[in-house]
């Protein structure tokens, strides 16, 4: 279908997969990603292999991104957000494109910009070798963009790749169909009683994933020392009526236990305690894995209460020990909160622009009128499920285009 053009919103693993599927039908694809780093959450995940591959799927996003970059039918746009959608025969869509402060053709990924930048978080680092440029400027934190007071990175860049005085631009396209693959937002657990953002050694599962992409074991953010006693707390922000999040986030039991196993494989002396409600063993092979896991870690079937910081900067946690049936207080070096998957931050806004419906959960509910859904925009999904969902959305799109 060389005369057809499909717009995909979201460059995560679902969007990348859908783009590749459509390209196989010789359909042109405009793949729009709002951040500077395509690949979504999946490309930030760590490989969970111990002595062998455990099929976590973390490498899939890398591979898909590489294939998308090389595919002539797919145009990947970074830093781009939808502004307006109108439909007559086709969809007419306008976008705002963020300034490309760092020229991808000039940047050699040396990292001098990040090293010299005085404002924390203003220079962001990519997650994959397929991220070109490997660095991006965060407009909210950059001092030049705030008040023009600093241009250290621009001066320091040996390739002259940085230009901070650029303005946002516009872009428009016509599309025969749209695939929404905007993914999820990780729950922010700052209001739960665990001191997240107060105690540096309380982190989320997504932060742990990023850390394990770069190093073998988890280090304590407060002092960069290896965490010897780690607690994982499941279901933080999932299955929670007080937040109106009644759903199970599906991926956290599998991903946390696999992270724990990987840490144990690389650092056998690490003690890991897993606090859970009930282990959701989604996925065909996970049930077998879980049998072994129960032997490796201390499993406590209760969610802990408060966390306090001790004088020597460790974390004291109160919980009911389901094994001894006694209340307990124990000290941990690091606590990983399995923060749930919630609807993407922009979902409501985007649904308004598209005229799409949302379920009671706040995720997108169903495909219709040339708009199709792929991946975790529909609800919590693993990488494998997102890829399958994207394949399904692409197939529905092809059918729609051929009947049109």
């Amino acid at each position, binding site marked *: 279908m060389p005369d057809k053009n499909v717009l995909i919103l979201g460059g995560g693993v679902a969007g990348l997969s859908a783009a590749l599927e459509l390209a196989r039908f010789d359909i042109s694809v405009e793949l729009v990603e709002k951040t500077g780093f395509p690949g979504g959450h999946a490309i930030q995940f760590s490989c969970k292999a111990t002595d062998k591959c455990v099929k976590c799927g973390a490498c899939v996003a890398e591979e898909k991104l590489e294939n998308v970059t090389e595919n002539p039918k797919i145009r990947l746009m970074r830093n781009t957000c939808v502004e307006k959608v109108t439909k007559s025969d086709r969809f007419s869509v306008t976008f705002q494109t963020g300034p490309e402060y760092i020229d991808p053709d000039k940047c050699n990924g040396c990292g001098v910009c990040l090293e010299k930048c005085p404002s924390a978080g203003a220079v962001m680092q990519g997650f994959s070798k397929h991220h070109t440029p490997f660095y991006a400027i965060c407009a909210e934190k950059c001092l030049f963009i705030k008040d023009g007071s600093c241009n250290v990175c621009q001066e320091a860049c040996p390739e002259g790749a940085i230009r901070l005085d650029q303005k946002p631009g516009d872009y428009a396209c016509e599309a025969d169909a749209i695939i929404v693959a905007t993914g999820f937002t990780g729950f922010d657990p700052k209001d739960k*009683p665990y001191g997240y953002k107060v105690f540096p050694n309380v982190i989320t599962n997504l932060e742990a994933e990023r850390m394990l992409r770069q190093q073998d074991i988890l280090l304590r953010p407060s002092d960069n020392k290896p965490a010897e006693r780690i607690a994982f707390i499941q279901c933080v922000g999932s*299955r929670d009526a007080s937040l109106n999040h009644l759903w199970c986030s599906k991926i956290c039991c599998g991903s946390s236990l696999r992270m724990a196993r990987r840490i144990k494989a690389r650092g056998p002396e690490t003690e890991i305690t897993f606090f859970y409600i009930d282990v959701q063993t989604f996925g065909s092979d996970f049930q077998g894995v879980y049998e072994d896991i129960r032997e490796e870690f201390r499993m406590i*079937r209760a969610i802990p209460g408060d966390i306090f910081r001790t004088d020597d900067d460790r974390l004291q946690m109160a919980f009911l020990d389901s094994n001894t049936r006694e209340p307990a207080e124990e000290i941990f070096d690091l606590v990983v909160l399995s923060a749930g998957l919630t609807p993407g931050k922009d979902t409501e806004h985007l649904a308004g622009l598209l005229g799409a419906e949302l379920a009671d959960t706040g995720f997108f509910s169903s495909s219709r009128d040339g708009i199709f859904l792929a991946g975790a925009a529909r609800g919590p999904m693993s990488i494998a499920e997102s890829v399958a969902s994207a394949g399904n959305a692409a197939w529905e799109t092809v059918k729609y285009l051929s009947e049109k």
Partner: protein
Amino acid sequence: MQETSDIIEMDQIDHDRFRSWPFSQDFCLTCGLCSSSCPVSGIDGFDPRKLIRMVSLGLEDKVVEARWPWICTMCAKCEHVCPMEIDIPNVVRSIRGLRDREAVPGILHKGLAAALETGNNLRLPKEDFVFILEDVGEEIAEESGFEDFKVPVDKEGANILTTIHNKLVNTHTDDLKHWWKIFHVAKEDWTVPSDNWEGTNWGLFTGDDGAMKTMVGRIVENMEKLKIKNLLWPE
């Protein structure tokens, strides 16, 4: 009954009464946040998660006989952390209410009976109560700056009516002084009733709605009789 090894007799399970309760105990995910957060968790094996599970299973006789509901202090921390918003303190109170009144733990039972008969948990006669108040008032008046202090008893038309926790006229009389002195310095127009002054309401803690209503009604009567619009009710 705290032993999970106890065999549950299936014909004993009667869900009907609990099903009519509006506390959403059937939504419990058994996450255990209540048990992990509870300040009296573990005392005599007390485990709020198990208690809610027993209610959800309809084990009425067992929970009504159990000591657990009487260990709970009803501080409500469990309710605050519960992701399913189950009103656990109210479940506890309702279980207490199902007990035969004669089987309510002694001090609560006797105290409440005394309050219903005499207007206070201690059976303190009116003359003794007023004597204690005046005695404390005289001690305050001995302090510099408080020479003209008097305890205003049964003052009609005052701005605030206050109740008294019985321990303040029993073992903790000094604790009356702090807030009375603040009233005096702030020139507040306040008073204490000489009858039905009891501020603790053990109908609340024993799950006895009738007794609770009687006690509250008496405070309202005092306000109407003395033509007072504002109530300060320190428990």
